[in-house]
């Protein structure tokens, strides 16, 4: 009998296909992968320790840098957490604008995820088309708050700037411009036979594994579970809007494969457009900075607030001891928890599929390592 052992292959931190600095240690037997171990920590920047030295409002620029592709969601979660702790009620205008910005950001984040997913598989053209559309969103947000990626926009108790006078018009133009683009993406990539061959029946995530590991976001919804925090635990004014929650149905393979997660993201962009359309015409008048407290000194206590980020459930657990600095800020990052699922999903697939599976889970290393 020959004694065989598995070869250990290292997909190192610097790699064109891992979305950031992630080291994957693969144990392969020929071409089949037996075990995947992710090694993290290459982007650790001590966010949680840093927060203990900052005042509450100085933490907001730092939260931007967690999931840098969906920065508004991070700001939103933190603001909701501290507002809950202090019992602040924000004006209606602020709520509407926050929701519109969050949905715009959701579309932008999904554009990056889908574009880089296509680029990993070899279709380089949709990557550029989707980034061109992302430019429109970023310039809308840049008009209002001045920055394209790390906004520092949603403050505790309000917003940093009121919306630009052109905001409503430009957003409506964008909504009309974007609907045919999703159709074009479907034609070019989603139903392409080669793309389906590469992604269907790959990386099937069973329902109980997803729930046991705590997956959330499109990773969970791709397996058929209809769980979205905007419905289950509505924060802000999401309960006033009418939108559907897309789930994976196994249209091109089995439920829970990579194509389903991709499909959930594409359909979520459409639903975000729906929310924006419902909200954009009804923004009430008001002052966006009226509820911002002069000195943010929450009472002693703890709070856990969660929002639906494009990548999953982002949670902030804040312990306050009554002073101007938080005692502890803990972030429950969705990509960190979703990354665990990778070990379960990769068993028995070829090395070429690992990249596809990693791309479909859609991690951002800024969140994973904080």
């Amino acid at each position, binding site marked *: 009998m020959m004694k065989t052992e598995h070869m250990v292959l290292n997909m190192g931190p610097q790699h064109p296909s891992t979305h950031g600095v992630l080291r994957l240690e693969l144990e392969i037997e020929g071409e089949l992968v037996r075990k995947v171990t992710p090694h993290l920590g290459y982007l650790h920047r001590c966010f949680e320790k840093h927060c203990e030295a*900052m005042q509450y*409002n*100085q*933490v*907001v*620029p*730092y939260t931007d840098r967690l999931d840098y592709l969906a920065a508004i969601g991070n700001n939103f979660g933190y603001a909701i957490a501290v507002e809950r702790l202090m019992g602040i009620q924000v004006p209606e205008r602020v709520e509407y604008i926050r929701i519109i910005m969050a949905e715009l950001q959701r579309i932008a984040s999904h554009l990056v995820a889908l574009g880089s997913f296509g680029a990993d598989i070899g279709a380089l*053209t949709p990557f550029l*088309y989707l980034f*061109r559309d992302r*430019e429109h969103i970023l*310039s809308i947000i*840049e*008009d*209002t*708050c*001045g*920055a394209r990626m*790390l906004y*520092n926009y949603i403050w505790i108790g309000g917003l*940093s*700037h009121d919306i*630009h006078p052109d905001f409503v018009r430009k957003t409506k133009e964008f909504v009309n411009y974007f609907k045919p683009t999703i159709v*074009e993406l479907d*034609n*070019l*990539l989603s*139903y*392409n*036979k*080669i793309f389906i061959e590469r992604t269907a029946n790959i990386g099937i995530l069973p329902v109980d594994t997803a729930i046991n590991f705590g997956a959330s976001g499109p990773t969970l919804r791709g397996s058929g579970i209809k769980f979205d925090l905007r419905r289950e635990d509505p924060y802000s004014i999401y309960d006033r809007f009418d939108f559907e929650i897309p789930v994976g149905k196994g249209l091109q393979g089995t439920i829970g494969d990579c194509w389903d997660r991709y499909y959930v993201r594409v359909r979520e962009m459409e639903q975000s457009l729906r929310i924006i359309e419902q909200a954009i015409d009804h923004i009430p008048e008001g002052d966006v900075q009226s509820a911002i407290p002069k000195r943010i000194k929450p009472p002693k206590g703890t709070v856990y607030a969660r929002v639906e980020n494009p990548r999953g459930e982002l949670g902030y657990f804040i312990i306050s001891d009554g002073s101007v600095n938080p005692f502890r800020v803990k972030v429950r990052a969705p990509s960190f928890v979703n990354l665990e699922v990778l070990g379960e999903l990769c068993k028995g697939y070829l090395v070429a599929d690992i990249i596809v599976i990693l791309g479909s889970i859609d991690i951002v290393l800024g969140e994973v390592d904080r």
Partner: protein
Amino acid sequence: MREYLQNTWLGIYTVLVGMKVTFKHLFTPSVTIQYPEVKVPLPERVRNRLYVNMDDCIGCDQCSRACPVSCIEIETVKSLPTEDLGLTSNGKKKALWVTKFDIDIAKCCFCQLCVFPCPTDCIYMTNVYEYSEFERDNLIYKFATLTSEEAVEKKANLEKFNAEKEAQKAAAAKAKEEQKPADKE
């Protein structure tokens, strides 16, 4: 068998649909611009390099305290009551000499938290984004308008004034002390 034929048909058909999409894009104009000659017009609220208008600065230190990365360093010297530093643009009287106002623009995270607390709106973000340097020390911007000799001079003046005040106070106290026993007697 049916699946086999369906695979073949789908393979050919979806490739042709994809090719049609890319073919249409061959004739759309390009969205990129030729950068150094043509630049993207930036919106008015854009957040790039910081600038401080020292005429308006009253040395209150609010911006330095608001900055999350501690990139602003301010040192001030109290002015003498006889000196007149002038007024800021919105009518306030300045009372402090600002001897050091350094912003390390390499550390700045462009969060704009320093702009809001300023009472005179003298620190603001401009739209300059092409300011790379070859030496890292050149990225520490010094905005204070006093030269270092003047700063030393102001400080010396202040110390002298304080010393005089102390001496006067001591003399007045001594005079009071001498008066008291004289009164008692």
